C-alpha cells in the first residue's frame, strides 16, 4: 500500500461531481484514468484528502462531430481516439488518432482519459499540444453551469490551468480541421515523457500553405505557438525550403532556461529537426502529392 489515506467517493453524474467538489473543498481531487495522479500518490508527491472517482459517470465518453468541431468527452480513453477511423475524425482531424499512439503505452492508453490529460496540463502531454494545435476550447462544469475556455487561456503553466476551484472538465472541442497535420516528439525511450515535441497543421490551397499552426512542447511550462514561424509558412509554397526555414525560426524561438531539464542547445536542435519532419509528414499524409519536392 503506497498512497496516503484518502476518502473515496464515487460520482454517477457530472452534477454529482460538482456537488462533491463543493462539499469536500479544495483537498479533493477528481480521479479519472489515474495514470498521472495515482503514480504521484504512490510517490506521495500528491496526497489528496479525498478522491472523487468519475469513472462511473455516464455520458462523457464520446467522439462527436459538430460542424467544424470535433467534440471529445472528458472520459474518452486515449485508446478510443487511437482506434477511431470514422469520417468525423478522418476529415480534418486525422492527426488525433496518429498522435494518440505517442501517449505512454497500450495499458496507459486504455485507461487514461483525454479530459484527465487536459486537466493535468503536462507541457509535453499530447492532448495539450493537440488542443493548442487545433485551437481547442475546453468546456468546464461548475456550480453555476458550464463555461468555455479557449486552450490559449486554459494552459497557464506547468501542471496548472485556468480551471477554478470546484470545476471539472467535461469536454474538449477541437476546431479548425485541416488536411495536413502531424505531431512528432522525441524521448529517450518509446513511451517516456518527450524531451521536445513539435506539432504542425495547415491546408494547401492552390499550391500555397494556408491556415498554418505550429506548436512546441517541452520548451516551456505550457505548449507554445510560434507565430513568427507560422507567418513564414503562411502563403508559401509547400516545399522543403519552406519547412527548413520554419524549423530554423522555431528552433531559434526556444528560450534558454525555459526547459525543465536537459541541455538548451540540444533541445533547440531537436525542435528544429522535429518541426521539419512534422511538416514533411503532414504534407505527405495530407495530400496525394507524395514526397515533397526538394527531398533527395
Amino acid at each position, binding site marked *: 500500500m503506497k498512497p496516503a*489515506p*484518502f476518502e*473515496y467517493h464515487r460520482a454517477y453524474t457530472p452534477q454529482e461531481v460538482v456537488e462533491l467538489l463543493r462539499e469536500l473543498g479544495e483537498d479533493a481531487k477528481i480521479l479519472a484514468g489515474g495514470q498521472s495522479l495515482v503514480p504521484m500518490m504512490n510517490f506521495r508527491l500528491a496526497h489528496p484528502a479525498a478522491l472523487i472517482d468519475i469513472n462511473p459517470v455516464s455520458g462523457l465518453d464520446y467522439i462527436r462531430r459538430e460542424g467544424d468541431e470535433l467534440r471529445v468527452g472528458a472520459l474518452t480513453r486515449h485508446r478510443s481516439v487511437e482506434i477511431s477511423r470514422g469520417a468525423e475524425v478522418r476529415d480534418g482531424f486525422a492527426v488525433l488518432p496518429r498522435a494518440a499512439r505517442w501517449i505512454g*503505452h*497500450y*495499458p496507459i492508453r486504455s*485507461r487514461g482519459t483525454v479530459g484527465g490529460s487536459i486537466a493535468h496540463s503536462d507541457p509535453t502531454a499530447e492532448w495539450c499540444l493537440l488542443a493548442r494545435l487545433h485551437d481547442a476550447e475546453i468546456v468546464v462544469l461548475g456550480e453555476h453551469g458550464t463555461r468555455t475556455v479557449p486552450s490559449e487561456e486554459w494552459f497557464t503553466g506547468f501542471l496548472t490551468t485556468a480551471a477554478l476551484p470546484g470545476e471539472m472538465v467535461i469536454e474538449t472541442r477541437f476546431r479548425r480541421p485541416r488536411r495536413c497535420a502531424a505531431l512528432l516528439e522525441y524521448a529517450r525511450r*518509446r513511451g517516456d515523457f518527450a524531451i521536445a515535441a513539435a506539432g504542425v497543421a495547415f491546408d494547401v490551397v492552390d499550391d500555397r500553405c494556408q491556415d498554418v499552426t505550429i506548436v512546441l512542447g517541452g520548451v516551456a511550462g505550457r505548449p507554445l505557438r510560434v507565430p513568427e514561424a507560422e507567418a513564414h509558412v503562411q502563403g508559401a509554397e509547400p516545399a522543403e525550403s519552406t519547412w527548413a526555414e520554419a524549423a530554423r525560426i522555431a528552433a531559434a524561438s526556444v528560450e534558454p532556461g525555459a526547459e525543465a531539464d536537459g541541455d538548451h542547445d540540444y533541445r533547440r536542435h531537436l525542435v528544429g529537426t522535429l518541426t521539419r519532419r512534422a511538416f514533411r509528414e503532414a504534407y505527405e499524409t495530407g495530400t496525394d502529392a507524395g514526397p515533397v519536392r526538394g527531398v533527395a
Partner: protein
Amino acid sequence: MKDQHLVTLNVNGSEHELVLESRRTLADTLRQDLGLTGTHLGCEHGICGACTVLLDGEPVRACLVFGVQADGHEVRTVEGLARGDELNDLQQAFSRHHGLQCGFCTPGFLMLAEAYLSTGPEADPDEVREVVSANLCRCTGYQGIVEAVTEVAAERRGEAKTAHD
C-alpha cells in the same frame, strides 16, 4: 479512521465480497486479500507493467487502479489462463520460444498479450514489439516474447477463420 468500502469483485469468473480500505491498490487486493500472488508488483508507479491485469477486458496497471474501483467489474489475472495443469496456448508459446527466464515479468506480459490478442490483430512483429514495449523484461531481450505473441496471433486467427468457415 480507515475509509473502508464493501465491494464485490469478479476475478477469473469467481465472485468475492471484500471490505477494502480505499487506498488499497487492485494489485494489493489481488495478492493480499485474495491470495492471487500470480500478479507481480515491480515499480508500483506504472512503469514496469509487471502487475498488468485485465479490467473488463482492457489491460490496466493494477498498481494504478484502486481495488474499490473494481467494484462490480470483471478482473482477469494470470491465474485465469491455464485450465488446471494445462497451460493455455500463449503460455505454451512463451515456454517454447524462451519468452521468459527469471519469470518475474511474465504474468504482466501474458496479460498484456492476452489483451492485445483479444483485438484479433494482424500482429506483424513491429506492432507486437510496440505493444510489448509497455512492459519491462530484463532477461529475454524481448525476442522470444515477440515470437511467441506473433505465433499465437497467427494461430488464433487461423482458428477463428476455421470457426467461421
